[in-house]
């Protein structure tokens, strides 16, 4: 690794670290919240990217290095779709050139089964849910099922290895930190919604049997913590745990307090106590929940906000966590360069002093309409200049 790339890498890691630990960095960092947008920007399809790792790398390295990002979410297509295909399909539908959950297919658990989930989450998911969900477990002899599953696992491990290899290439070839350490978690409440009870199911459970939901969430935390430690043997400044949280935006504060918050807080507190940094995507709007999340451990979390007013979020949460966001995908695609720059300037003026602020798109850039490259370029280059001390 050349010295200048190493230097660039270290500078960027420090810039982000300063922001997360609530100090003022040498300039406002810019985080590349980029996913499948990289494919359309490079001019390839999702299918082409899935077939050829080198092509996938070319696409992502263009999207992540044409703009002055200080760090990025992922080195590649973020979901191990080939693994999902090998299991005989899952809940994803990607016929639309995006990775989207096909609706109404995840009610795999009945409400009567909460007690089993609570008693032993891993056993319940392994013995009951996976066979219901994946085709390869539904036909053939035990040996055949085992062989197919072994094949799927090898695809999964290969995905992990390749992801790490690509991440290392971003470091040595571009001096760009990919903060993803392979720990991409949802919190228990999200897992129940996404994979077990589906949207309608969990909304009903929260009204009718909140104690069961809360208990199940608590039962699922320890396996999640164990999994996190298994994947992150060592603590380093350039790798974070990534959490994507989506249930809380849909429920009332009191419901959040009852079913979601205790297990979520336990996870973050435990992991942060080890010195691990945590990147959290607070999806949609969390304003009604600030009084809870302000209690998360100080200087350990970088919180990406989508629809929250960042000025309000900084005021309420700025002593606890680093606030990230500000580049609205709507402006990035439909607005002008001037509009994007004007918004960025206002945010730097109001939020940069004192630190604890990182620029990023308000949503993960997923499809080509999430940003016009010329707007993204103009606004990020402006931030580099204007956001310096």
């Amino acid at each position, binding site marked *: 690794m050349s010295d200048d790339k190493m230097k660039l890498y270290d500078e960027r890691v420090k810039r982000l670290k300063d922001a997360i630990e609530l100090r003022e960095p040498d300039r406002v960092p810019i985080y590349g919240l980029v996913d499948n947008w990289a494919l359309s920007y490079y001019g390839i399809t999702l299918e082409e990217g899935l077939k050829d790792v080198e092509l996938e790398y070319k696409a992502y390295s263009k999207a992540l290095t044409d703009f002055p990002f200080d760090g990025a979410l992922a080195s590649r297509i973020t979901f191990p779709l080939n693994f999902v295909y090998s299991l005989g399909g899952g809940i994803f*539908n990607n016929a*639309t*050139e*995006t990775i*989207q*959950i*096909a*609706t*109404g297919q995840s009610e795999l658990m009945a409400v009567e089964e909460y007690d089993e989930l609570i008693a032993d989450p891993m056993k319940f998911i392994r013995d009951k849910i996976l066979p219901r969900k994946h085709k390869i477990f539904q036909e053939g002899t035990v040996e055949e099922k085992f062989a197919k599953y072994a094949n799927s696992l090898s695809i999964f491990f290969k995905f992990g290895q390749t992801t790490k290899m690509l991440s290392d290439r971003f470091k040595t070839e571009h001096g760009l930190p990919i903060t993803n350490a392979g720990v991409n978690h949802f919190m228990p409440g999200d897992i129940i919604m996404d994979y077990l009870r589906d*949207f*309608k199911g969990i*909304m*009903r459970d*929260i*009204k*009718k049997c909140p104690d069961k939901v809360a208990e199940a969430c608590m039962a699922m935390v320890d396996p999640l913590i164990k999994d996190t430690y298994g994947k992150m043997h060592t603590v380093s400044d350039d790798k974070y745990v990534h959490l994507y949280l989506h249930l809380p*935006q*849909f*429920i*009332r504060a009191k*419901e959040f307090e009852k079913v979601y918050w205790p297990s979520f807080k336990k996870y973050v507190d435990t992991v942060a106590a080890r010195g691990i940094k945590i990147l959290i995507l607070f999806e949609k709007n969390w304003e*009604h929940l600030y009084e809870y999340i302000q209690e998360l451990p100080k200087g350990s979390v970088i919180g990406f906000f989508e629809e929250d007013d960042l000025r309000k979020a900084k005021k309420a949460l700025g002593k606890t966590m680093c606030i990230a966001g500000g580049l609205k*995908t*709507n402006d990035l*695609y*439909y*607005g002008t360069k001037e509009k994007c720059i004007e918004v960025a300037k206002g945010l730097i003026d109001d939020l940069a002093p004192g630190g604890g602020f990182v620029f990023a798109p308000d949503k993960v850039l*997923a*499809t*080509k*309409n*999430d940003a016009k490259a010329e707007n993204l370029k103009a606004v990020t280059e402006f931030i580099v200049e204007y956001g310096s001390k």
Partner: protein
Amino acid sequence: MDLSLLTQKIGELDEEKVFEMLNEFVNTNPSPDETKKVVAACQSGMSVVGDFFEKGEYFVGDLIFAGELLTSAIDILKPIMDTQNAGTVGSMVLGTVAGDLHDIGKNIFKSMAEAAGFKVYDLGIDQSAGEFVKKVKEVNPEIIGLSGVLTLALESMKNIVEALEEAGLRSKVKVIIGGNPVTKEACETIGADAFTTNAAEGVKICQKWVG
């Protein structure tokens, strides 16, 4: 039957009490007129829910639950309802636009629109301009509702409005767009008549159009 209590209990999402009241009512062998009033009271409950949502006291989860509650309530009343004379205030064709598979917002809007007395033709998800045009020709609605979550939905919405224009249908309908990415600017670019990110507000806009 205490109609205002029924409305209130739906508004509070008190499922047990609502079912108890409705089952008791059905057992009294009521007249079609009485039943009509009870259905209306249930529907008013849904607009109470919408008001709580607009005030920020209820969240999307509450709207989902309310939609299910209303469906179950109407199911209880169905055997005694006079479906022949169930008047509607208007009709709409609704769908999630091409490239987008999200239907939660659309379904919430649908149940609230139905509660407000609209006949809703729901096309489902990932629907092309061609599908919308075909359905509009077939059922001749007053309103078209286009839903989407991803930013790419805006382009699909624009295509649909253009297709309506080309088919000579645009002037005969009102178009409302809804969902995560819609804004005033997007609404103007797309050529829709209204936009909303709030199902309750969307239904009110539609009511004004047909009222």
